[in-house]
């Protein structure tokens, strides 16, 4: 049983697991998917890429930002059967750039991709390689959303 106590203006409630077993009756306001103020994920409602997504870390803003944007945009809008197959040139350019900044983009092969939130983008090996090289000085993102959203080839 929950116990309630008052200490002046402060109320203290102790609850057991059973107390909280029943579903909550608290009502939350429904989310508006088109709310312009809300922080967005990687893909905006319009279908464009949100370069300012915190999930990208410093990828779009660093010295190789432009190359990264080119490559990833190409991939994102690619309609080929093998998605991104026409984007090899951009990815090569991006890799070259990243190799010039090993401090920022350490070449680790065992890192899990952390940027893709959308399940529809199938990540090519190059993308996962590129994304996993996103600066480790940024903490790698949580593994929880990864299990939800990331897709690895």
């Amino acid at each position, binding site marked *: 049983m*929950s*116990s309630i106590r008052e*200490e*002046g*203006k*402060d*109320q*203290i*409630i*102790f*609850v*057991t*697991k059973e*107390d*909280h077993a*029943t*579903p*909550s*009756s*608290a*009502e*939350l*306001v429904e989310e508006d998917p088109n709310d*312009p*103020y*809300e*922080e*967005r*994920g*990687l893909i905006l409602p319009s279908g464009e890429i949100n*370069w*300012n*997504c*915190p*999930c*990208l870390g*410093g990828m*779009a*803003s*660093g*010295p190789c*930002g*432009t190359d990264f*944007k080119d490559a990833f945009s190409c991939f994102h809008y690619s309609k080929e059967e093998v998605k991104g197959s026409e984007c090899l040139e951009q990815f090569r350019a991006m890799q070259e750039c990243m190799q010039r*900044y090993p*401090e*920022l983009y350490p070449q680790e092969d065992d890192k899990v991709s952390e940027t893709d*939130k959308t399940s529809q983008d199938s990540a090519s090996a190059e993308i996962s390689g590129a994304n996993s090289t996103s*600066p*480790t*000085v*940024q*903490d*790698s*993102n*949580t*593994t*929880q*959303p990864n299990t*939800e959203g990331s897709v690895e080839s």
Partner: protein
Amino acid sequence: MLKCRNVWKKLAPLARASSTVCRQNVRRAGLPNGRIPARVPVAHMSTGPTGGGGENHLYVLLVGAACLGGGIYAYQTIKGDQQRYQDRINEISSRSQKAATEEPTTPIQSEPPAVKASKTEAVPEPETQAAPSPEEPSPPVPDVELAAAPSETAEPPPADEPVVEAPQEEAAEPPAARVVEEEPSPPSEPSPAELTEPPPAPVVESEPTAAAAAESPSAEPPEPQPEVVAVSGVDSTPASLKVPSHTPYLLIGGGTASFAAARSIRARDPGAKVLIVTDEPDLPYMRPPLSKELWFSDDPSVTETLRFKQWNGKERSIYFQPASFYINPEELDSAENGGVAVLTGKKVVQMDVRGNKVKLDDETEISYDKCLIATGGVPRNLQVIERAGEEVTQKTTLFRKIDDFKSLDKVTRNIKSITIIGGGFLGSELACALGRRSHESDLEVIQMYPEKGNMGKVLPEYLSNWTTEKVKREGVKVITEALVKSVTCKDDKLEIQLKDGRLVKTDHIVAAVGLEPNVDLAKSAGLEVDSDFGGYRVNAELQARSNIWVAGDAACFYDIRLGRRRVEHHDHAVVSGRLAGENMTGANKPYWHQSMFWSDLGPDVGYEAIGIVDSSLPTVGVFAKATAKDTPKAATEQSGTGIRSESETEDTATSPVASSTPAPAMEQHKDDYGKGVIFYLRDKVVVGIILWNVFNRMPIARKIIKDGEEHADLNEVAKLFNIHED
């Protein structure tokens, strides 16, 4: 211009009179026949003579006298101005030598009074402006009446000033010699943007003064002295080599908010060129580890590397990015894809909002298109310590920067006793960190504050007391309800006298008594400072004035949900910096994503909080018992992040209900506030939430605050958090 008009007004009646007479004569002459001259009552001015032949002579005399008078007047003015100009230049040149050796601020301060003292128009401006422009050919037009001031058209950056009015066009000065004309009134304070870098600095203010116009063109040929100006010419000085004279995005301050804005700008504006100006010698870094993780490091060289191991074992540096991320300021202009450049060790001392430029402490000027002020703050000090004399202040640390961390680390290795004054976030965290260290050494750690318990202004009393017990268990001697009366230095030890009579002897003091937001630029920029919260007053979009945004600790902003506030937390700096960056690139979004904060007090007590968390508000706390799984350590291990703020900001769009996992059965312990949720209410609406030893539920808390609903039973709301589970 006014002068010109006045002169003309004086001459006009005479001119009209003489022209009338002239016309009359002509008419008479042109009517040789006996045609009766139409005695049209032509406007006879009182001064107009009506006589006969003698009037010709009179007419000539009058006009001649008028012209002569005008000519003499003009000559006098020009001569006088030249003299004043010369004096001014001399003063400036002598001042520029002084400025090299002493405080740069004093010349600036002495300048406005000097300006006011000299004449109504701010003379220095046109002169210093005129001086650099001799590089452009300027045909001198020493005509008093032509207030000719063609603007510098070669300027791409925004001269949003109303550059000089109509009379401009009369002037025939082809390659715009930039002449600045001042308003007579004293906004000479914002205006003293002395042009030290000719090309990009746009026209400051425009106000037609015939004298100014006349003197600059005329002054140039006789006095082409570009070197007289403090920083002369195009690129002859070392200062202008290093610093770009114009940047599209200027970020003042090199902390968390600034870095977040830089990243946001670069993400949204492809190829953006961002210049960060900071007075610290370091690249942008994060502050929370300075009072937490860095102290727990086993690495003896931690003060050099500034790397720390997170709970999950991963190491990282406190710097957001290594140096290779940034480009050199010199290369900013030419960088094809833009970049972020950091100018360290330079302080912005003045801001010219109308001219869209700032002045640094070495007299360099940088103009911008968009500017962010993220100057953060300076730690407050106790008055009793400030007045106590140098011996005491030398043994006192005000903790905020990397240098403070380094010096405190060194000090604590060599002393026996340290006292932390202040019971808030910083004080408590430092006390716990040092308390941990005291286990290895025999360092005595004392913490004293006026409240009844740690975090007394944040946590409700029962929780504050509980926290204080935990802090004591970390090895800290806590002295509550302590008001410092005086501090003296005796035999190389500090003696702190409290108002209730207690005496505390210690070797070193750390004062963690709050932060004073840095609003130094408010005066020169004409920015509003908030009287309730301090800091620059900005709107919900973080904008202070056109092209100026403020973010981070220094911003007192309007939160649509919670009202006007100023927040001094890391995540707020990230969120507001990012938002400011978005708005600088045209987003126009208000502050909406509520920032959070967190604190760890040792390995057992950790909490995350969001919204307004003020202990004076009524609270409702819902608690369960904590198991070994509910500690900050466990939380970060599970989520794989080192810093919970990272897990927050790098995390998006997760479902609001936490995943449930089977939890072990637990007991009820009445007074053990192991884990739970505390709601802070204002008018029955939840405005703040603390997640006490409950982690990764922040999105739910954020949603509840965003809704702003009145909930009848907060226990029901607490169910949403699944506090019994991991």
